[in-house]
């Protein structure tokens, strides 16, 4: 196992779930409760020194119990390592702690995840939709159950036959 993963496993034995290394990328899965502490450790520990947040992302796995996966990718520019931290959340309670207190750039990135996937972030200063309109009623576009093909102008007329 990668040295950073071992470090995190030793430091957070309850929060650590698993670590993968593939194509040179290190991905560590932790529990939702430990997510903020692990990120704080990565940010503040001098040996980790992850001062740069690369991206925040999310993946939808509709067939699994804990449906959503929140992905934080952080990097240390001085130490030259990059770590991907992942946590799973169930659909009925999809909320994780926000990282805005650790990396200011997380504000917009988390807003995008909220907008696209509907995952909420606790302690986020301004959690609103960012790319879709504020009053967008039709759900979260990047969820797998959101249709790829949208409604068009023709759909507004009842007298046109349903193409299906």
């Amino acid at each position, binding site marked *: 196992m990668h040295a950073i993963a071992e470090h995190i496993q030793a430091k957070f034995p309850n929060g650590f779930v698993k670590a993968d290394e593939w194509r040179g990328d290190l991905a560590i899965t932790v529990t939702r409760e430990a997510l903020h502490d692990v990120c704080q450790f990565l940010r503040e520990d001098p040996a980790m020194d992850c001062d740069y947040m690369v991206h925040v992302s999310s993946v939808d796995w509709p067939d699994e119990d804990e449906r959503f996966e929140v992905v934080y*990718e952080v990097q240390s520019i001085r130490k030259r390592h990059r770590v991907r931290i992942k946590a799973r959340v169930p659909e009925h309670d999809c909320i994780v702690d926000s990282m805005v207190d650790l990396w200011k*750039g997380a504000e917009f990135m988390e807003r995008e995840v909220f907008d696209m996937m509907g995952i909420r972030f606790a302690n986020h200063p301004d959690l609103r939709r960012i790319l879709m309109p504020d009053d967008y009623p039709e759900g979260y576009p*990047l969820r797998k159950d959101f249709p790829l093909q949208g409604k068009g102008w023709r759909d507004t007329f009842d007298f046109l036959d349903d193409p299906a």
Partner: protein
Amino acid sequence: MAHRMEDQRETIYKVDPEHPETESLPTLRTEELLLNMGPQHPSTHGVLKVILELEGERIVKSTPVMGYLHRGVEKLAEAGTYHQFIPHTDRLDYVCAMYNNFAYCRAVEKLMDMTIPDRAEYLRTIVAEIQRIIGHLFWLGTQALDIGAMTVFFYTFRDREILLDWFDELCGARLTTSWYRIGGVERDFNDSLIKKVRDFLDYFPPKIDEYVVFLDKNRIWLARTVGVATISAEDALSFGLSGPSLRGSGVDYDLRKYEQYGAYPKCEFSIPVGKNGDTYDRYWIRIEEMRESIKIIQQCMDQMEPGPVMADVPSVTLPPKDRVFKNLESMIQQFKLFSQGFDAPVGEIYCGTEAHKGELGFYIVSTGGGNPYRMKIRSPSFIHMGAFDNMARGYMISDAITIFGTYDIVMGECDR
């Protein structure tokens, strides 16, 4: 006017007890003003609205409102094959399409664990650096135009046009180019293209000095850039800025050195790093980067040896175009690769590439099969907009335009 409405609002102006002389002044009512800037403002480089809270002409708080150009590219990626997505990447940052293609192809190659032939790496690097020069010329022209120096715009666009014509000859398109392919590039340079690059290498360096003459001692340019929109190195890192916006604050972080992709490890070049983190430093970095790009292109042209331009992995890479038109099997292969895609392994990767705006990254989750399960695009423009409020506070309304410009934002990439 029929009648005047009684003003119900409280006055904010209070008499200071330590300076009772202010009591004799008339009570001034001050209030903060909300100003919607955009979405139809020419200096927002696309369709962006910023709600400015103003105190007089100073910005107290700004809230960017984005998404006017949102096209759901990440959702589209999930529906298409890996090869089909290449032309979508041109439309992200439509002024620098080549670099988007490069970043995307690199990510897929990392997913497929492919190595690229040497000549293809050199060709990719040359075109990427030409694209970087185009991007910086475009930035310089429009930034100067936004600030009010119109002449530079004509000079930079004159030279940008030469390179766009060169792109036209290379791949048949000027802006939305798709010349990079997964595993290599679409075609090699011909003699005419090589000659034109060499001519350009002689032609261009004196032109950079020409732009600098317009700006370096221009009092208006200096007044509007020096000390405007400063951001400390710590803040810049915390906000996730990248590219010239980060290096302007003195952080020496460039993926070309840091990750060593393409032919960059074989070339000698330096990374210009600023000190003050203001708009002027970011301008200076872009000017110096154009000079470095010329050096990189020069070295690549000299070192490049003849050889194949596409990796030999028939299950992933496209067959050469001349075979597709003459050979049935090649045509079937091309058709299958585009319609069904190749079988990607299960896994997830993140691959970042130093585009001229900053780190353009692709995070791809694959569950096997021809389509990505999830693709996230880390676009520098979007992340730079996150720092806008921090950088704009305390500056004038007119500086807001300078700050959009200094990130070099393109809304197509920001909203995706």
